[in-house]
């Protein structure tokens, strides 16, 4: 290889620089979102049949279609429990009012819910 030594040395330096963040954080525990178990449990209890963390956006989309188009405003979950289909009520239902924000902030997702829906007053973005 023409000028092989220089190329390989540069490659090693490049890979080293590129992976600094991984080595820097190696062994340190991930802080994780500040979600308390009660919040998670409550959210899961809305619909125990699905993984609420992964599938709540799809569930909310179904809620929206039922509420706006069919005029059905009450959700009866797979265990027969009724919930008002309202993300305002859901977000304001736990005492800290951080049910949505705690996870969304950590994951840096910014759903546009609150650009129209009225966010519970105590909630911090």
């Amino acid at each position, binding site marked *: 290889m023409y000028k092989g030594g220089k190329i390989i040395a540069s490659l090693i330096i490049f890979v080293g620089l590129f992976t600094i963040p991984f080595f820097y954080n190696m062994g340190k525990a991930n802080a994780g979102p500040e979600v308390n178990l009660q919040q998670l449990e409550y959210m899961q209890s809305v619909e125990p049949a699905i993984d609420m963390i992964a*599938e709540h956006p799809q569930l909310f989309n179904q809620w929206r279609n039922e509420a706006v188009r*069919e005029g059905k405003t*009450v959700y009866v*979950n797979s265990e027969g429990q009724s919930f008002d289909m309202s993300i305002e009520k859901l977000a304001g239902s736990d005492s800290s009012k951080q049910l949505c924000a705690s996870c969304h902030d950590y994951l840096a997702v910014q759903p546009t819910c609150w650009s129209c829906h*009225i966010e519970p007053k105590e909630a911090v973005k």
Partner: protein
Amino acid sequence: MSINRRQFLRRTGMLTALGLGGAIAFTGFRKKEIAAAAEYAIEQDAELASRWAMVVDMSKFKTEDDFKRVQEACHSIHNVPDFKNTKDEIKWIWKDDYEHTFGGGQNKYLEEHLNEAPFMVLCNHCENPPCVKACPTQSTFKRRDGIVAMDFHRCIGCRFCMAACPFGARSFNFKDPRPYINEVSPEYPTRTAGVVEKCNFCYERLAKGEQPACVEASKGGLIFGDLDNPNSEVRKIVSTKFTIRRKPELGTQPSVYYLVGGDDNA
């Protein structure tokens, strides 16, 4: 190792097919609907009808305050912004004159007080709504109870519905409305810029068993009910008294009737 062009093309083709097939295997079989076991219900005391309609009794709208009170009741509940200029104005229910309400071609010798008499106007919730046909995203649709409603989530702001509506019942948010709302009401969401909005016959209040906000504030000037129910007050008025509708010649079959003769000379 060297490959010729034919081999190269065949291999890339195979790889592409594998990639696409793999993607379908992962995403194609994922269920679209979730929680099939769950059900949806209406609230116990919800008001139900097969065709909601309104009668505007013009004899009850005499003073400026009669109009203002009704408009404020609606606009404050639904977070309708006040941009303070007519270009950006958003209106769900408002006051307009005879000519704009019932169309041109009227008798030019009509007395001034009649010609310029104000009328309470709002979305007519037509039986054949042209806005619904115009909407490319089905954001505007007709509900089973006759209400022409909007799903603001789906509105892309094309404004075809505004062009299609012969009554000017729709307004467009050219700017973010939030800063222009005096006091945000928690009863109904706000809108964002780029979304059309209009009167929804207070379907969110009907779902809770309440009357529309304007009807409550009108002190009897607005009468609301089910047109398909022969015992409802609106049906009785519409079938026994002389009422007019806006631009009936267009065939949209508005659900808002104007009782113009007053109670006595019906």
